[in-house]
């Protein structure tokens, strides 16, 4: 039998753990709401810009000049923008993301270089001796586009200079509060979505389509990276909220189990004491 004193101590400790996880859950819930709104707020811009690019890509092909960011080359080196979180306690989120990227790297026959965003992913990739070309940590919970520009510019510069020939974007896609899906999708070269001919409009381009496309493509990449980071943040907060809720539930269960054991132990002790007393009284008689 465990002593009641030890049991009480255990209960107190688990109770305070539950309080902490409960607080973390509430923080994550508040942050999650904002992050989800933000992730959704960026969608009109991203849809729009993608549509214009499809329109323009046709035009520029007609003009016979191909923008460097559209150009497909022989792949000699791949880069992956790997987005994870800085902090833990968010369930399997980072583990899943790391696994997906790591498996992908193993399948490649050409060297892969990484741009790691978030401490968890960077540490993982360093530990397994992958080539980390750049790292970005301590991205705020509500990043501005400006904050993420250095990331997209590294990618664009490396791509234009020919150091890398293909870029993937690896991030945790936010689906619902309960589900977040690790995704790995191609970012560069930009693949214009094919749209049915009937939906295109004949535009006047000022000054000309090639110029407008040249301005638009880097924006598109910046926006994609920015959007992926915002999705990843929404996923992180949702995953943390769920993980912390489970932790709180677990802790409460442990507390009730322990309380039961404690009560049993106490009763047993009382019974034993009573037996002792009655035994003692009997001896006196």
């Amino acid at each position, binding site marked *: 039998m465990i002593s009641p004193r030890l049991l009480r101590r255990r209960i107190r400790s688990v109770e305070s753990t539950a309080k902490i996880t409960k607080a973390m859950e509430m923080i994550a819930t508040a942050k999650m709401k904002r992050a989800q709104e*933000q992730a959704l*707020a*960026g969608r*009109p*811009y*991203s849809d*729009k*810009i993608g549509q*214009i690019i499809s*329109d*323009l890509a046709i035009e520029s092909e007609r003009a016979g000049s191909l923008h460097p960011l559209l150009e497909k080359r022989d792949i000699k080196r791949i880069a992956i923008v790997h987005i994870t979180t800085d902090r833990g306690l968010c369930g399997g989120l980072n583990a899943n993301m790391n696994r997906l990227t790591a498996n992908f790297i193993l399948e490649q026959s050409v060297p892969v270089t990484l741009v790691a965003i978030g401490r968890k992913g960077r540490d993982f990739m360093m530990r397994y001796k992958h080539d980390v070309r750049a790292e970005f940590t301590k991205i705020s919970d509500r990043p*501005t*586009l400006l904050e993420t520009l250095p990331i997209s510019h590294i990618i664009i510069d490396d791509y234009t200079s020919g150091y890398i020939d293909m870029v993937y974007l690896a991030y945790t896609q936010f689906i619902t509060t309960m589900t977040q899906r690790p995704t790995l999708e191609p970012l560069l070269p930009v693949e214009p979505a094919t749209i049915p001919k009937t939906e295109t*409009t*004949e*535009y*006047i*381009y*000022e*000054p000309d*389509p090639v*110029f*407008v496309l040249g*301005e*638009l493509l880097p*924006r598109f990449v*910046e*926006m994609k990276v*920015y*959007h992926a980071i915002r999705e990843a943040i929404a996923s992180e907060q949702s995953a943390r909220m769920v993980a912390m809720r489970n932790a709180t539930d677990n802790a409460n269960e442990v507390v009730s189990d322990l309380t039961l054991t404690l009560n049993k132990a106490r009763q047993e002790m009382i019974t034993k004491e009573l037996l002792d007393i009655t035994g003692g009284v009997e001896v006196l008689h």
Partner: protein
Amino acid sequence: MATLRLEIITAERQVFADDVNVVVAPGIEGELGILPHHAPLMTTLKPGELLIRKDGEETYLAVSGGFLEIRPDKVIILADACERAEEIDITRAEEAKRRAEEGLKTHPQGVDMARAQAALLRSLIRLRIAERRRRKSRPS
């Protein structure tokens, strides 16, 4: 009066969406006045002031570059950054202007020069828009 649908979107949020009468935007080839039933057009914007007129009321916004698309059904502006007059932080804009001017004094070369000039331009536009609003709100 005929109206056109105007939507202003940045990567971060939707700034503006309403039916308006006239839009004057700082196109790369010069100021661009848009009335309802304009032909489809696609152009880039340079940093400048955006004027919106609705029922005789004028609204100014600061844009720092972006794209303008005129479609048969609406006009869409994809801005890099866009602020309404009331959102402009005057002290911050003044601070940015001072910093940019200081940067220019050292006569930087190449990219640094262009960057300082662009920063100066952006802060001047913001200040001008904020100033307009102040003048309007004060009864003359």
